[in-house]
């Protein structure tokens, strides 16, 4: 037989390899058994990581993609296997993460008949994917799979679903790889408009108080250097959205911190004080803007984005710079006059000082008799890792404390669920992050609630012998919800207390070293033990049960309406 006449399963695997894939996160089942059988022969070229739940596989692929810049790949069976991936797909859509999810499907003659484990994956996935396609014939594989990678990874990245009918996995095809690098209905990178570039540069040149908002678009576009050159030339202070964190090093002089609901005071206040607001690769999420009616009304707004539908979606803009930040930023920078805004950039210091006194100091240097605070644990871990680690978080207070107090030297150092706010994201995403960046330290901060949503992935860590440092910030509460109940619902703690297991014992059951820490005096040593032990480690920090994340802008309030603490 001609060696190019192969099964659909093999054609799929060969296409993955041709697309540069070497790692797959997955879980087998009836409608992908032929594919897994074929994978057996390809195990030297394709590493398969067996998650413990398909949601875990999907978040792992996200973590992998976020740290490596490569497209994460997920392989699952039909029906429940596919539906279990939905949360991860939706998360990837919201946070622009390139993943390709391949789900098995019943043989094509059975489609539409409610066959065993048949589900309309395309119908379910369409609203939460960049593209979703069903392969019914082996001849479609080369084209569809390459197209999937092209779509997932280009332009504004996102998730793609390939639903792969079982008969197409078994059927034979005369296979030739065809690289897709163009789709006539899809323009991933628009050509920048010279006029808009000029107008943007002119506005910035005329600005006395320019302020830049840095989003994940800078990281996705690999435009970190271009960003710094831009900020430097015109001396523009900047702040990052949560997903934009680590695009600039934490200690960079023009980096003024994080925006949004639990962001830094300076950046939020200055949003309503600057004269030109320059948004770069961010989408004015409501957690960043607060009440839009009271958002940056005084400023001229320039919006750099690759996605035209984001420009003007939430905030009306004066200048739209539609394009890839890696091209548009330098184009604008070339037209900028070197400038200094010493007084303006210096004016953030007072806000920073105020935040330090009212919030930060209490959080990272609490008085001796207080229980452990989340912030102090985070900062100590960050310092022990010398700001070089990758931070992965779950969702809730632990997340906000982690992103507020962790520090970064390198780009692609924050993996967190932004747009969807998915509890249970952290543990599996950390697995993917470690796979995607095996040489870097990976620190996961998670809550007692979120950890238990995907806890079973400890099994994956055990099996793959992954060196992940897991820090559980255990407050025995669904803390972030409890915080809202304390502030806005009269302390009626409806369904937020949690009776928790002994997390350290659970870790040990999975062969993961662990330690509980409740005393401040033991914290340094416990962290040292964590970093000194090779392999995975779980540090369970018993933190204050009623801890609060401040500053806080209440949902729907003006971004300058900042609660600094208990009054």
């Amino acid at each position, binding site marked *: 037989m001609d060696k190019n006449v192969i099964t659909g399963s093999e054609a799929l695997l060969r296409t993955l390899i041709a697309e540069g894939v070497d790692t797959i996160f997955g879980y087998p089942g009836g409608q992908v058994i032929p594919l897994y059988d074929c994978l057996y022969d390809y195990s030297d070229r394709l590493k398969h990581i067996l998650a413990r739940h398909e949601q875990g596989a999907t978040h792992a692929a996200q973590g992998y993609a976020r740290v490596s810049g490569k497209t994460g790949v997920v392989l699952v069976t039909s029906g429940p296997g596919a539906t279990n991936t939905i949360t991860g797909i939706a998360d990837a859509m919201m946070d622009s993460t390139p993943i390709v999810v391949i789900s098995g499907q019943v043989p094509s003659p059975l489609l539409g008949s409610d066959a065993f484990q048949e589900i309309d994956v*395309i*119908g379910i996935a*369409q*609203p939460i994917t*960049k*593209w*979703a396609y*069903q392969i019914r014939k082996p001849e479609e594989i080369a084209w569809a799979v390459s197209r999937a990678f092209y*779509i997932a990874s280009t332009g504004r990245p996102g998730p793609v679903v390939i639903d792969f009918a079982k008969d197409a996995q078994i059927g034979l095809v005369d296979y030739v790889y065809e690289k897709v690098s*163009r*789709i*006539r*209905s*899809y323009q991933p990178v628009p050509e920048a408009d010279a006029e808009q570039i000029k107008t943007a540069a002119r506005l910035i040149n005329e600005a006395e108080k320019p302020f830049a908002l840095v989003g994940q678009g800078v990281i996705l576009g690999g435009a970190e250097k271009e960003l710094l050159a831009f900020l430097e030339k015109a001396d523009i202070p900047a702040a990052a959205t949560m997903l934009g964190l680590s695009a600039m090093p934490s200690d960079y002089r023009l980096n003024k911190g994080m925006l949004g609901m639990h962001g830094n005071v300076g950046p939020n206040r200055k949003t309503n004080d600057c004269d030109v607001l320059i948004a770069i690769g961010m989408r004015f999420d409501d957690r960043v803007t607060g009440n839009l009616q009271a958002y940056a009304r005084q400023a001229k707004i320039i919006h750099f984005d690759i*996605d*035209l*539908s984001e420009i*003007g*979606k939430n905030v009306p803009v004066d200048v739209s710079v539609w394009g890839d930040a890696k091209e548009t930023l330098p184009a604008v920078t070339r037209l900028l006059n070197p400038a200094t805004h010493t007084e303006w950039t210096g004016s953030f210091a007072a806000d920073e000082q105020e935040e330090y006194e009212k919030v930060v100091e209490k959080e990272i240097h609490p008085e001796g008799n207080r229980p452990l605070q989340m912030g102090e644990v985070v900062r100590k871990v960050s310092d022990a890792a010398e700001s070089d680690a990758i931070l992965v978080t779950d969702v809730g207070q632990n997340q906000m404390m982690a992103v507020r107090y962790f520090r970064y030297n390198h780009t692609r150092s924050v993996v967190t669920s932004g747009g969807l706010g998915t509890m249970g994201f952290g543990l599996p995403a950390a697995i993917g992050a470690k796979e995607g960046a095996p040489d870097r330290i990976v620190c996961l901060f998670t809550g007692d609630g979120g950890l238990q949503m995907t806890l079973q992935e400890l099994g994956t860590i055990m099996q793959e012998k992954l060196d992940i440092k897991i820090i559980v910030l255990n407050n025995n509460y669904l803390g972030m919800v409890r915080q809202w109940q304390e502030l806005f619902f009269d302390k009626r703690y409806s369904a937020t207390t949690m009776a928790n297991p002994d997390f350290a014992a659970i870790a040990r059951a999975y062969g993961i070293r662990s330690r509980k820490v409740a005393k401040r005096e033991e914290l340094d040593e416990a962290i040292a033990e964590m970093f000194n032990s090779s392999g995975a480690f779980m540090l369970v920090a018993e933190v204050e049960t009623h801890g609060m994340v401040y500053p806080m802008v209440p949902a729907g309030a003006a971004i300058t309406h900042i609660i600094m603490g208990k009054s």
Partner: protein
Amino acid sequence: MNTKQLYTVIIFSENTVGLLNQITIIFTRRQLNIETLSVSPSAIQGVHKFTITTFAEKDMIDKVVKQIDKRVDILKAYYNTDEDLVHQEIALYKVSAELFMKLKGVEELIRKYNARVLEVNEDCIVLEKSGHYEETQALFLELSRSIGVLQFIRSGRIAITKSKVERLSDMLSAMEKKIQANQ
């Protein structure tokens, strides 16, 4: 700016399975009702054309159309108001043959409305009229009042822009040029 008006959204797409769903979910998420919908192959082979009308605010239609245009299999999406368009709907009316024959001034009626008789049989007569909504509706009301309408159906709007060329052909030819330049 906050008043709703009727927009005609014109979409050119690849002819792939499931596209209509991709488009309608974008309307649904923004709570926009689709008033009329018509889908057919366009003048360009392999390209489908959707014509959708909806009441919306300008700001909203702008955002929705951008979100549609962004979908991978959509070639081009844009919107117009009635001033920019020549548009028609087609309506069919089934009436009782007996009553219709007895009706006085049938010929004037048909002429006045510029209607056509499509089918005549013992039981019923089927009339056809194309025009704007108000026009097809007017005939419907008149027939309803006089002899009653047994069945009535109206198509979705089809429309053509008054400007010289379809924007899609411009776009496609620009794209072809770019590809050739890159080769």
